């Protein structure tokens, strides 16, 4: 890769370069002090939030409330995770197929896949969730037997739709980001298009796709709380119920929602670390 967009500072003599190079080091801490301050204010705000939570704890023990309802809240959280895993698996399988269609050489097929991807990517998750809840019947009948369709299954389908579209876009983006030399080299070695795709392009794409895919998974996990808006009883619903059960005290809101944040953080942060580890490992091979 070349960068011909860089006009070098013209007036600098080569001899002066070491002095020039030392200047930014003196300059950088000054600039960073400002960002430092901004970060510090942000931290102070967060600590203030925590202090507020603690003052609530003095009055009627916010921590005690959380501890009392801990099993209930945890069962809600487990339900969130179950929803996220199911919709992610469903969405990924569908999305891989759609993504491969989106890079096909057949023009109508490609346009259709692109259109489907865009349609489901363009709708907000919440609206798709509303749609899944309202448009999918609450029971269906096959050969005379009626199967009920609980709310959470509809929620899973509602989340799987945007996942499918996003996975498709990830596949398309990864294939597009490979240097065109890979395609040309494969062609010159007489690989067919399918073999090029399976043996050369996609294996290289996996490492490009894995980090955004895992980002998507954490997005899905965090989106599952939206199911509370459409009436699935999951963690946020239970949090609101716990808040109501404890008399609706406003000072309990921050600790309770903070606890919900903590749960998701504890779950999603290791996933993020693993993503980073994978990214770093893959970069070693480049």
């Amino acid at each position, binding site marked *: 890769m070349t*960068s011909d*967009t*860089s006009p070098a*500072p013209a007036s600098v003599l080569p001899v002066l370069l070491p002095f020039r190079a030392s200047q930014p080091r003196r300059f950088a801490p000054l600039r960073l002090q400002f960002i*430092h301050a901004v970060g510090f204010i942000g931290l102070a705000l967060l600590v203030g939030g925590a202090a507020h939570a603690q003052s609530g704890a003095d009055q009627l023990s916010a921590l005690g409330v959380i501890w009392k309802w801990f099993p209930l809240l945890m069962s809600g959280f487990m339900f969130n995770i179950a929803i996220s895993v199911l919709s992610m698996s469903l969405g990924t399988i569908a999305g891989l197929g759609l993504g491969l269609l989106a890079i096909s050489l057949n023009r109508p097929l490609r346009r259709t896949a692109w259109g489907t991807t865009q349609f489901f990517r363009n*709708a907000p998750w*919440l609206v798709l969730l509303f749609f899944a809840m309202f448009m999918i019947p609450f029971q269906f009948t096959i050969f005379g037997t009626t199967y009920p369709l609980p709310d959470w299954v509809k929620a899973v389908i509602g989340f799987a739709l945007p996942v499918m579209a996003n996975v498709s876009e990830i596949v398309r983006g990864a294939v597009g980001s490979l240097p*065109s030399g890979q395609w040309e080299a494969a062609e010159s070695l007489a690989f067919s298009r399918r073999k090029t795709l399976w043996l050369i392009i996609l294996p290289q794409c996996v490492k490009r796709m894995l980090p955004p895919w895992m*980002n998507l998974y954490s997005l899905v996990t965090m989106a599952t709380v939206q199911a509370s808006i459409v009436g699935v009883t999951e963690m946020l619903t239970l949090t609101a119920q716990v808040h109501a059960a404890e008399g609706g005290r406003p000072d309990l809101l921050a600790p309770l929602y903070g606890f919900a944040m903590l749960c998701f*953080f504890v779950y999603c942060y290791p996933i993020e670390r693993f993503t980073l580890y994978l990214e770093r490992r893959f970069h070693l091979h480049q």
Partner: protein
Amino acid sequence: MDLVADWFRTLYETTGINLTIVYDTYDRQRFLSGLGMTVFLSVVSIVLSVVIGAVGAWAQGSPLRVVRALVNGFVVLFRNTPPLVQIFFFYFGLGHMLPRIENADGMMVPLVTNVQWAIISLSLFAGAFNVEIFRSGIEAVPRTTTEAAEALGYTRLGVYRHVLLPLALRICLPALNNNLVNLLKTTTLAYAIAVPETLYVSKQIWTDSQNVPVMMTVLLIVYTGLVGILVFLMHRWERMLSIPGYGQGAAR
């Protein structure tokens, strides 16, 4: 105008498709203001989050450990917690602590309104993702390019502004595109703290007029249109910025 309104009234009487937002002035006013609020929320949050992302990615490469730790802490915290819970935490938790001020009418109002809380939490949420996206773009730029720029006497900021960011931006545009689209859609979450945006006013309208399926369809079309505009602009930009010989041109 009356003709159009009459036509839609007839449509309701004959087919049951009740588009009150066309023939009812009050509903139309509500819906348009909601649409305006969604656009306002999105544009402000997109600009703020991209700025947060670019500045954050630069600060992440800082030689100072404290700065790196602060940026990483911010990114880690906001990436790994649900945006809805963040909005609740900001609006209920932090909003409760801030002092109330007197407005022009002598009423006591919160220092930060719910719209401002929505903008703050949405920008921070998307900004945290943008930092990460810009970082991954920067990592994709070969180390030698940075070294070459350093050898040419660029300062750290200069390398970032003139060499790293332009290249990283081109590499991470698809991901950035994804995230900004995601941000536009996340603005629906402001619904939860009563910001009168499109979803909120639509719910008011369908509660008043009992036309849930019709309003849901309108809602989906509106958001598809809004995101379509954003995607169109981003794809144009992507094509404008594309590096020749990088990426496979044949499939497009």
